[in-house]
């Protein structure tokens, strides 16, 4: 293996290949920054271009895009609360409050460090796990998929709001919306009310752009001022403080990276879920979970570590079985096939050096994207000083064009604006938006897993207790729900003590 890795590194560092890698990084950063575009769109546009390229060049460019997307997406998440990509949405939660406090540079510094570290961890895990990847992926069947989806919704509902009930209600509404469109199990059309547009369900990217980006911009245009509440307090020299904070919280980096790699490897669950779960677990493990959402640097480090680690995780099922772990990987599968590479266990024997080249390209591009991000931090952070009355309509306009550009579908733009208003109302009336998003993403996986499990178990719920993996997942769900009552009980006890003492 070391010889092959060395040889792959030499191939990647050849001047010709480096040009393609750098090109991929720039494309990845641009597509990441523009809300609504993202890795899938960038790779889809690249797909036909790679036809005439050497495999090494095509992989360098694809790896460059995959590694840089996370950085680009997180920059707009921090500065504008408009996640450039789905997985960057979790970075909004604490990244944007930091930008509002004038500490956008700290947040970007943390992203620039956590992101490549997560990527590096993911790559190392990929190399170690590769021999047993098949066994791990096969641990997940329909009951486990259903339980992973439920676990994701429950953990986010618990951690997203101080009000568990409203978190669960938002999750319920998100699930209900996810059932709109074609029923993949039984084949019926649901809740479309005659609209062809809704046949494919409520699309995710317009929903994310609306719920986070547009809602925030509507708020900014109403409140006025700048993104950074106190323009005089904006620090443009906080990058090193962000880098130091990330290195100090190395345990969070490792935890986030493990979450990213594991969830990324589960086909159909995706990077957005991985970053939100990484955020939730870090929040729950913290001594002061209530302070998350107000600008905690740990709330950026966790999802960002998961964000880049997930790519290596998602590569496992993509390469080993041809089952893409995400939409991005589905497009990447197309690039593989375009170059005559058939995914499956034999790919590692036949194209080992190319695979290592790709892995190294993803890692190197994450580092390159971070260097570029840090270099331009002064200019990027200055966005937070632009007047909200000017910034908000400009971001809304760019978001609408970006959302339209995904499928060239005007309906996406209308949907994003409707969900944007809904997001503003949720913000206004204390309904957490995260459980709604996570349920919208996981609804289809949950329903498919549930229906298929019921078919396998002939209608018996005992199917969810038949494997060790599902028993562990059930235990985690129950524990999460019970754990959420601990702060409430503590509060009640604390209230009672003074009464009894008096």
């Amino acid at each position, binding site marked *: 293996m070391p010889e092959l890795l060395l040889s792959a590194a030499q191939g990647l560092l050849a001047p010709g290949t480096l040009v393609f890698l750098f090109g991929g990084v720039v494309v990845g950063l641009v597509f990441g920054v*523009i809300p609504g575009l993202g890795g899938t769109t960038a790779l889809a*546009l690249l797909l036909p271009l790679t036809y005439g390229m050497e495999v090494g060049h095509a992989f360098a460019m694809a790896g460059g895009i995959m590694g840089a997307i996370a950085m680009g997406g997180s920059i707009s998440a921090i500065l504008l609360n408009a996640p450039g990509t789905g997985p960057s949405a979790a970075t909004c*939660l604490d990244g*944007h*409050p930091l930008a*509002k406090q004038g500490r956008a540079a700290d947040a970007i510094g943390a992203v620039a460090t956590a992101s490549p570290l997560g990527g590096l961890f993911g790559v190392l895990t990929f190399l170690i796990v590769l021999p047993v990847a098949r066994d791990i992926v096969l641990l997940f069947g329909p009951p486990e998929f259903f339980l992973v989806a439920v676990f994701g919704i429950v953990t986010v509902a618990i951690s*997203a*709001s*101080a009000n568990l*009930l*409203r978190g*669960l*209600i938002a999750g*319920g*509404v998100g*699930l*209900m919306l996810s*059932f709109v469109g074609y*029923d993949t199990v*039984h084949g*019926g059309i*649901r*809740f479309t009310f005659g609209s062809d547009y809704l046949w494919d369900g409520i699309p995710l990217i317009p929903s994310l752009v609306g719920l986070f980006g*547009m809602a925030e911009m*509507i*708020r900014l*245009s*109403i*409140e*006025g001022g700048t993104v950074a509440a106190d323009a005089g307090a904006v620090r443009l020299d906080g990058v090193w403080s962000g880098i130091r904070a990330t290195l100090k919280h190395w345990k969070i980096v490792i935890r986030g990276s493990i979450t990213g790699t594991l969830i990324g490897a589960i086909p159909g669950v995706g990077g957005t879920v991985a970053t939100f779960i990484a955020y939730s677990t870090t929040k729950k493990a913290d001594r002061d979970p209530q302070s998350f*959402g107000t600008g905690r640097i740990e709330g950026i480090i966790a999802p960002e570590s998961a964000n880049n680690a997930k790519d290596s995780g998602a590569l496992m099922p993509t390469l080993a079985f041809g089952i893409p772990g995400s939409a991005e990987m589905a497009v990447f599968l197309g690039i593989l096939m375009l170059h005559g590479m058939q995914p499956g266990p034999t790919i590692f024997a036949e194209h080992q050096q190319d695979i290592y080249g790709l892995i190294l390209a993803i890692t190197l591009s994450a580092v390159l994207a971070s260097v570029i991000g840090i270099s331009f931090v002064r200019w990027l952070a200055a966005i937070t000083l632009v*007047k*909200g*009355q*000017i910034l*908000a*309509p*400009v971001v*809304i*306009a*760019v978001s*609408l*064009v970006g959302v*339209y*550009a995904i499928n060239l579908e*005007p309906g996406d*733009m*209308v949907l994003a*604006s409707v969900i*944007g*208003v809904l997001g*503003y*109302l949720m*913000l*206004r*009336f*204390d*309904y*957490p938006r995260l459980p709604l998003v996570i349920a919208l993403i996981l609804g289809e996986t949950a*329903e498919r897993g549930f229906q298929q499990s019921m078919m396998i178990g002939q209608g018996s719920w005992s199917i969810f207790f038949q494997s060790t993996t599902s028993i562990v997942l059930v235990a985690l769900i129950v524990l999460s729900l019970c754990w959420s009552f601990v702060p409430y009980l503590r509060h009640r006890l604390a209230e009672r003590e003074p009464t009894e003492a008096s």
Partner: protein
Amino acid sequence: MNRFDDKELRRSLLPSVATLFFVVAYLVAGYMTLDETTRYVPLMTGAVTFILLVIDIIRVIVRGGAQSGSWVVEGGGVNVPESRGREFAAVLLVAAGVGAIYLLGFIVAIPLYLFASIAFLGQQSIRVAAIVALLTSLVIYLVFEVMLDYQLFRGMLFA
């Protein structure tokens, strides 16, 4: 005093009651229009959400609006302006912008939307609004149409 005379309580109840109406409509539509196999999971989810909403409404009524934490929001909340007109105007401008894009397309509607938002809602000078509107539209055109080769939507009237 009647409990429902409390303005804070009514405001706290509003979103839960509105969501409850949505959930009831969803349940009725699901029951009436879908067959037994496809409606099972959606109706089960709707029923659970309905129960959670009823508990939330009871909780708000029992505790009272002010104590229910309704105005403490994620990410710092919204500094609600004294006049609701600004809120309505912001939402209406987005709706008008999307409507204009739908009818006239991006190239015509984006500068109009930006100019109206910056000059009227943002209360900036006409010159600033015009410069930002034109520059942003130019950048959007260059990035999406010229560089990325997307065909921007021309609108229902010009398509």
